[in-house]
């Protein structure tokens, strides 16, 4: 699903160059749930941004879902993000003046999807995360856990091939964290590949594989469980 070969990313200012990723090589199988760990500044988020086509890579080769995406145009990257990738962020990143329904709807608009199809997908996704009764609420009327579930609904409603989660439980208490993690495990069990950046070692051990990044390179790999054969229906049923 995701294959990176000697990928590098350098941030340059007038006085300093920062090598955020150095010759990073990695292969993530379809349906795999991978946790990315590492200290602050190790390159976890940059890795996730490169993987999510939010940043261009400076060197190496990146293949996503069988397509070489190393040198795509900005529009092409936007199209892949919209159709094949779902994002979940630590700070939820909901649009504050849109209600739950319209927050989930946001990515579908850029797909030029008919209104009826949008409605079907939004209601199914919110049903799946247990928020079908909160459609009219705005983010500030929801708890942190609920907001993150809205973000998950937004990520899965487009039926993505991959979900990229950047510390999705970082702002939540233990109970909420467990709920969100269980939801992500369910989504993964239904066939969606997930890459999750986390500082939480317990959560990292619930997935198939943990990659520990140090100074922009994969330093250690831990296998916790074997990847099961892909289910008959390989996408999230929303």
């Amino acid at each position, binding site marked *: 699903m995701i294959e990176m070969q000697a990928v590098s990313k350098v941030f340059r200012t007038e006085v300093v160059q920062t090598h955020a990723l150095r010759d990073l090589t990695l292969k993530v199988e379809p349906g795999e749930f991978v946790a990315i760990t590492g200290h602050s500044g190790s390159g976890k*988020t940059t890795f996730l*941004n490169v993987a*999510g086509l*939010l*940043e261009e890579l400076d060197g190496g080769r990146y293949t996503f879902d069988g397509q070489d995406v190393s040198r795509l145009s*900005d*529009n092409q990257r*936007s*199209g892949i*993000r*919209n*159709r094949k990738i779902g*994002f979940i*962020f*630590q*700070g939820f*990143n909901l*649009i*504050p*003046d*849109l209600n739950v329904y319209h927050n989930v709807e*946001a*990515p579908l*608009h*850029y*797909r*030029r999807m008919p209104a009826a199809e949008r409605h079907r997908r939004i209601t199914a996704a919110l049903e799946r995360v247990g928020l079908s009764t909160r459609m009219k609420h705005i983010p500030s009327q929801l708890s942190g856990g609920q907001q993150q579930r809205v973000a998950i609904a*937004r990520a899965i409603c*487009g039926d993505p091939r991959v979900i990229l989660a*950047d510390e999705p439980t970082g702002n939540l208490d233990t109970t909420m964290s467990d709920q969100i993690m269980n939801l992500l495990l369910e989504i993964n069990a239904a066939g969606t590949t997930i890459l999750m950046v986390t500082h939480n070692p317990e959560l990292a051990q619930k997935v198939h594989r943990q990659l520990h990044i140090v100074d922009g390179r994969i330093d250690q790999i831990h296998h916790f469980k074997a990847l099961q054969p892909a289910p008959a229906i390989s996408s999230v049923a929303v």
Partner: protein
Amino acid sequence: MLIHDLNLAVRSLRRNPVLSSLMVGAIAVGIAASMIAITLYHARAGHPIPWKEDKLYAVTLDIRDDEPPQSFERHPEYPPFQLTYRDARALYASDIPVHSVMMFRSGQVLTPANKGIKPFTVSTRVTTAHFFSMFDVPFIYGGGWAPTDDDAPGSVVVLSKYMNEKIFGGINSVGREVVLDGRSYRVVGVIAAWMPRPKYYDLNSWGGWEIPEEVFIPFGWGRALKMSPHGNTSCVSRNAKIDGLESLYTQDCVWLQYWVELRGRADRDRYQAFVDNYANEQRRHGRFPRKNNNRVVDVPTWLTMWDVVGDDSRMQLALGLVFFAVCVLNTVGLMLAKFLTAAPISGLRRALGARRIDIIRQHLLEVIVVGLLGGAAGMALTLGGLTSLKVLMFSGRLAHSSNPDRVALVQSFVHMDIPVLFAAIALSLLAGVLAGLYPAWRIGRLAPATFLKTQ
């Protein structure tokens, strides 16, 4: 998608009402300042008779002595703007024009038949017969007089609409008698509402910003009754001997307006040659000491030559547009601040799949909404400003004016017509786009990952 973007634009504006109001206010003030300036300029810069642009020509001859420019000459490079009686008479004999008109403005006392109305002064145009057809003067009743009445002169008069209403109550007064300076004239025509702006055929009073005369009588009465011209009279030759009003008919004094109607531009050169030949011939007799500098000019050139629009109007327009530009620049700053504040949301939308063009379009739509709201508020301010100007004008010299034509003329200066209205709408859209283009482009160029962590 458009409705979706429009919805987002309105939400975004409501997210920060103070900043949004400031932007709308800045554009509104800019629109109002420029629209008031444009309205005032437009009222003065219009073409009074565009359909005859290639036919109507003012004629002037450079009869001045060969002396350095005089201090009172605003444009020493041009000949005097009026003719002597002698030259007007000579040119009048030409058969090149379809029609020629010589004329001047004077004043008389009108004694109404109705004893209830006291005698009062009226403005009189003393003119040859083709004045009415040449300047396309519309009539309600009757028409002008025959050319044979010019020199006779015939005791005939044409009244303005207002004068006919004042002394005859607006009825068809053709055939009725009017007493001017104790002499009786028969009404042959009543003019309909007619307000050439500016009064291009005679720029003597208020630089052309005056209403047409109230009564019109044949040219021959001028000399017969020794009527004094109300306007600039300049005896341009050092040899001129002034001895009463009759001197105007015998000496080299310029005081008559002279116009010709030609068949088209092709005849202009022919007529110019005729005028120059006339001047050459006069030079042989000791007149016209300067080189030929005679002008046969169409109405727009005539108005430009004599600064009828005026530098102050142009300066006002320029200041209005500069003020508009300053307001747009201010809005650019406010818009940029607003867009940068909301940049994390744009970054999020980019992450969710929006293309750069989607973000730019959404933001441009927002500024167009600001532009239109600013335009609407600006129109209200413009109307308020023009109304205030009207109040100021009528508290001055017009406060006691009983002549509705004069009131209408002044009102027309502050009247916003349809072309100006469309200009206001276009200007507000332009303001929105100008103010938003750079901020929208800046936001569209931001890397999507930049603000995701900070949202």
